[in-house]
């Protein structure tokens, strides 16, 4: 695995903050960020259900592996040098509950911040 494409919600302030944070971390696997449902995303993955990627965070591996929701977050953490041991630990059954809680929290934050009507003023 040399690169991961992260399809993120460009209209959501929290998602953009998260994307910024991920982009700044030291990466063991290159993370490429493409807005979900955009033209570049459709061109890269013509067979993908792009409407769904706007509802659930989706990360795609360089061989076409599709990771959604919980797994998407896990794979993003796995790609970061500082977070890889944690990501590996979280896949063990006892720790999955943390991952689910974190994913729920992310979804909640996304829903909350999206309620603000941004429009043009929200561009970073």
């Amino acid at each position: 695995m040399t690169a991961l494409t992260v399809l993120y919600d460009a209209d959501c302030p929290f998602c953009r903050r998260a994307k910024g944070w991920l982009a700044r971390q030291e990466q063991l696997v290159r993370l490429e960020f493409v807005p979900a449902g955009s033209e570049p995303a459709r061109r890269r993955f013509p067979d993908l259900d792009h409407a769904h990627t706007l509802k659930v965070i989706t990360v795609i591996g360089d061989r076409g592996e599709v990771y959604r929701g919980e797994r998407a977050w896990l794979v993003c953490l796995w790609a970061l040098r500082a977070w890889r041991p944690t990501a590996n630990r979280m896949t063990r059954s006892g720790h999955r509950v943390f991952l689910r809680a974190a994913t729920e929290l992310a979804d909640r934050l996304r829903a909350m911040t999206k309620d603000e009507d941004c429009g043009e003023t929200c561009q970073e």
Partner: protein
Amino acid sequence: MDALVLTYVLYLLISIGLTVWVGHTLSRNGKVFLVDVFGGNDELARTVNHLLVVGFYLVNFGFVTWYLRTADTVGETRQVFETLSVKVGTVLIVLGVLHLGNVFVLGRMRRRSLHQAEDLPPVGPDAYTRPA
């Protein structure tokens, strides 16, 4: 040779002997760890191992030498044993702490290199798609 000098001689023989033995253990077994951490690069492993061992000997011989002198009165045989027990005991504890510290550091180096060598994520994908 009076009792005090005998104590010093015994202290040095025992402490130096133990230090050399622990150092040899570290050198021989640490190399296996390092070869693994450096992905089979034997020359690099040997070099780093040698540097670590030199550092180990410097610190330990330094401590053994520095810790030699005693203010105890050593006249009878009993006092020889008692003074030796404190001196050798302390040296053993210091050796033990340094040795375990080394083992811990080597283990951490290896764990980090294992994590970084992973090619695939720890979970399988939910689906597949064809990249353009």
